């Protein structure tokens, strides 16, 4: 198993690549979700202002 993480001496390069890839994919998922929350909050606020 430690041999697997060692990656034949290239551990730093390989795991940094996979780590950055994971982070970037995650950001791509999180950003639209954040947008959704903000948008829905704002829309609810404007709608309730209109009705009252």
């Amino acid at each position: 198993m430690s041999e697997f993480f060692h990656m034949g001496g290239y551990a730093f390069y390989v795991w940094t690549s996979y780590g950055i890839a994971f982070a970037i994919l995650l950001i791509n998922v999180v950003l639209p979700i954040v947008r959704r929350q903000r948008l829905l909050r704002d829309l609810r606020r404007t709608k309730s202002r209109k009705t009252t």
Partner: protein
Amino acid sequence: MRLFRFFHRFASPREFFRISGSMIPWLAATTLLLLLIGLYLGLFVAPPDYQQGESYRIMFIHVPSAWMSLFVYMVMAGAAAIGLIWRIKLAHVIAMSSAPIGASFTFLALVTGSLWGKPMWGAWWVWDARLTSELILLFLYLGVMALYAAFEERRTAQRAAGILAIVGVINVPIIHYSVMWWNTLHQGPTVTKFDAPSIHLSMLAPLLIMAVAFTVFYVVVLLMRARWEVLDQEQRSNWVDDYLEQLSS
């Protein structure tokens, strides 16, 4: 004809919002499954390379993201052209939602390339035709995003950024053929050349699976981005009110 009708319906904001909402969970599950299979085959099953040892495993990230950087650009430019010519609102939304996703794939391709170049070539970065044209692609994406953000009025912003996206499409064939037209430090094509791919099947399989995973991933995050953009743009429509009511009840 039925396909045309489907797209015609799909292009209406309300239908797009509804249909994409029901597609996302399935596509997300597919992405996750493909990523897990790809990573398993790429990290555990595929043997080391005869020349590059274990370091070549960066390929399973690097190559799909580089392919996606070009594919997403073509989708963006194509959607921008459709939006400009036929004035379809949804096409502009697709184009502008693709830009940040494409930029992130381009960034990932450049960074993982750098992390692969250092141990194999002996340099983090070189100014050869392939690397330089890919860097220009990143700047094109950022330029499209900046231009879109620069205009107060949405339609003007979409047109200006769309035109830049279409103009920049010329860079796509340059990137692809750079390794054949000029001598570069970057290698030539392994998979997309005319004769059989010069890669062992045990390494090709995870590469292609990761590429499909990245493509489906792109569709998922594109739909996610586009949905909320559509909802924002259509907030005065009745169906948005209905949706909000349905959410809070």
